[in-house]
């Protein structure tokens, strides 16, 4: 008998029923909620006269809309009335139903994909869903996690289950060791560059190999977070000692007797050696350079020593057209070196790169230096109140401030620019977020995705530089 993949195991252990038509009912252990994709679900639930199936499986936070300045002033002080209503609607829904929620300015509040793991609300072996595509992040814990739509948010609230179909298995092995100054962000951008934004469609991707295992939990979350940018709703990494050490002692993690039993059960959360994958890809981690995106989707990426492609040299007309359109939008010339791209703003934050380790890496680069005068703004937005507090305890806020960065309250911020933090038309931004789509960070804005260390170095230089030469 052939072995099972990690995804197969998670699927099997959550299968409530397999229906004749190929669909299946899957049990959901953890449902995370935020203000943007939930109001219509709560409304639908109440219109149908239904109640949540299981309250304690839900955990809510506010993140997409919140201002990143003066959160302490409270929801009533939010100047945008539409944002204010959306946030207070989640507060009201959670209060009314009795769902645990971290409200704005609660130290535990922050970006939904940062707070789940931070609280131990994301555990190995769980199924985790959220009305947000970056739910893939939680797969770093050996959990089956993916984004869902608002109708499904309502479905999970009402039934604690999801109707779904099994995906295919994909294995991406990154050999090691990674080069000095090469981070998890560079690894995942490089993978997306190689397999494309639809390379993982219909698949659960398991990331493995020394290049992955050597990463901290923060780094593993960065990798799984962007599985969706390769088209895969699910990213997964097997459980090992690094996972267990991270989870131990967190508020929602099992304690005492339960902890010992859990650790035993979690030991099986890895693919069997004879497991069969539908698609297998191997990437030489040693060859990965720090990455920078030059286009309008995450597969439009190259190494820091590289150049923007020249559309004239592309034979396929559809591909050539899409590169031309991207360069036109980005205001770049074919053949231009990545290092010559001048920047207007720098954003360090988002569910991809706003954890304590990300902030440490960026602070290390900027310590004792000054943000370039050519920049309009450089901001650091911690992923949660707890990340912010930890960074302040370590004095990182002082390092950033002294260098000319703005130090903000937690939230999604300039990752999707639903609050006041956004790019102006035509502005180039070095961003540690996950999407460089047209207008993502503000209408007409031009995003370049990079690691925190690369963003920090770019802020100092005013253009992209190879951070490896700074360490």
């Amino acid at each position, binding site marked *: 008998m052939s072995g099972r993949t990690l995804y197969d195991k998670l699927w099997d252990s959550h299968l409530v029923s397999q229906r004749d038509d190929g669909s299946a009912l899957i049990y959901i252990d953890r449902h995370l909620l935020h203000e943007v994709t939930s109001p219509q679900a709560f409304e639908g639930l109440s219109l149908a006269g239904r109640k949540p199936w299981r309250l304690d499986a839900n955990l809510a936070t506010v993140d*997409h809309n919140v201002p990143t300045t003066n959160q302490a002033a409270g929801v009533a002080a939010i100047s945008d009335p539409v944002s204010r209503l959306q946030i207070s609607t989640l507060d009201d829904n959670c209060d009314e139903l009795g769902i645990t929620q971290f409200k704005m300015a609660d130290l535990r509040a922050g970006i939904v994909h940062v707070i789940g793991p931070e609280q131990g609300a994301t555990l190995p072996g769980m199924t985790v869903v959220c009305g947000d595509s970056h739910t893939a992040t939680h797969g770093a814990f050996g959990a089956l996690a993916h984004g869902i739509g608002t109708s499904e948010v309502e479905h999970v609230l009402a039934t604690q289950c999801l*109707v779904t179909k099994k995906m295919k298995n994909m294995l991406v092995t990154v050999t090691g060791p990674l080069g000095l100054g090469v981070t998890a962000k560079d690894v995942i951008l490089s993978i997306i560059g190689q397999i494309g934004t639809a390379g993982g469609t219909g698949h659960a991707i398991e990331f493995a190999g020394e290049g992955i295992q050597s990463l901290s939990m923060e780094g593993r979350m960065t990798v799984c977070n962007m599985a969706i940018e390769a088209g895969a709703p699910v990213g997964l990494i097997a459980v090992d000692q690094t996972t267990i050490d991270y989870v131990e002692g967190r508020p929602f993690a099992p304690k005492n007797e339960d902890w010992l039993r859990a650790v035993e059960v979690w030991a099986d959360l890895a693919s069997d050696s004879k497991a069969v994958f539908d698609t297998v890809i191997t990437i030489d981690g040693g060859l990965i350079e720090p990455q920078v995106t030059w286009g309008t989707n995450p597969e439009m990426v190259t190494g820091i020593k590289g150049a923007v492609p020249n559309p004239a040299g592309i034979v396929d007309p559809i591909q050539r057209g899409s590169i031309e359109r991207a360069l036109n939008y980005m205001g770049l010339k074919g053949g231009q070196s990545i290092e010559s791209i001048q920047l207007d703003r720098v954003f360090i934050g988002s569910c991809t790169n706003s954890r304590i380790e990300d902030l440490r890496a960026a602070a290390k680069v900027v310590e004792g230096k000054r943000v370039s005068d050519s920049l309009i703004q450089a901001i650091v937005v911690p992923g949660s109140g707890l990340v912010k507090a930890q960074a302040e305890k370590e004095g990182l806020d002082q390092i950033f401030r002294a260098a000319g960065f703005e130090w903000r309250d937690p939230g999604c911020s300039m990752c999707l620019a639903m609050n006041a933090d956004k790019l102006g038309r035509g502005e180039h931004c070095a961003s540690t977020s996950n999407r460089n789509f047209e207008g993502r960070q503000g209408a007409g804005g031009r995003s370049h995705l990079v690691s925190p260390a690369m963003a920090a170095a770019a802020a100092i230089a005013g253009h992209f530089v190879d951070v490896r030469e700074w360490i």
Partner: protein
Amino acid sequence: MQQFISEKGLVVPIDRSNIDTDQIIPKQYLKSIKRTGFGVNLFDDWRYLDPGEPGMDHSARRINPDFVLNDSKFNGATLLMARDNFGCGSSREHAPWALVEYGFRAVIAESYADIFYNNSFKNGLLPVVLAAKELEYLFDKSLGDLPLELMVDLPSQTVKGPDGFETRFEIDSFRKTCLLDGLDEIGLSLAEADGIRAYENTQRQRTPWLF
């Protein structure tokens, strides 16, 4: 959910790959707590020349004459055609809400991102998958002065067009039935309530820390 059986209509061709949900409905409109009101902001950044914000009078905004959706010959179109990886990016169900409210009943593309594909069915929007060379042919046909008209039929899983064009598309049977019958999925799952409870009881023994 909204029913879908068949749809005969004009096709708006957007000749692009990787059309992401940020393009379909930009984030500023996601602040709404309602399910409606998104149609006027479908493809907002491409459709209008000036920036849009929720609550403004969109009929007073400057229209981008170069964007295909604004071409009056497509008025009343109910089918949208694009290249591969349609609906990639964010999980926002506002994307199918906006498409449906604008008047689209089906999308025709080479491939879709998984979450968008799934969300479409919940809103009676049929995402049809055709092969690249069939799309090539249909894009070619849609370049003429007269808009292309197609018939999408779910029971027979076919797309029919002019000059005898006819092709079959794949769809899994669960989704097909849900669309044809306009089924209430939550009601369907709640019919398995005993099974869900039995599962919970077993798991409570095996992994008590999850309860």
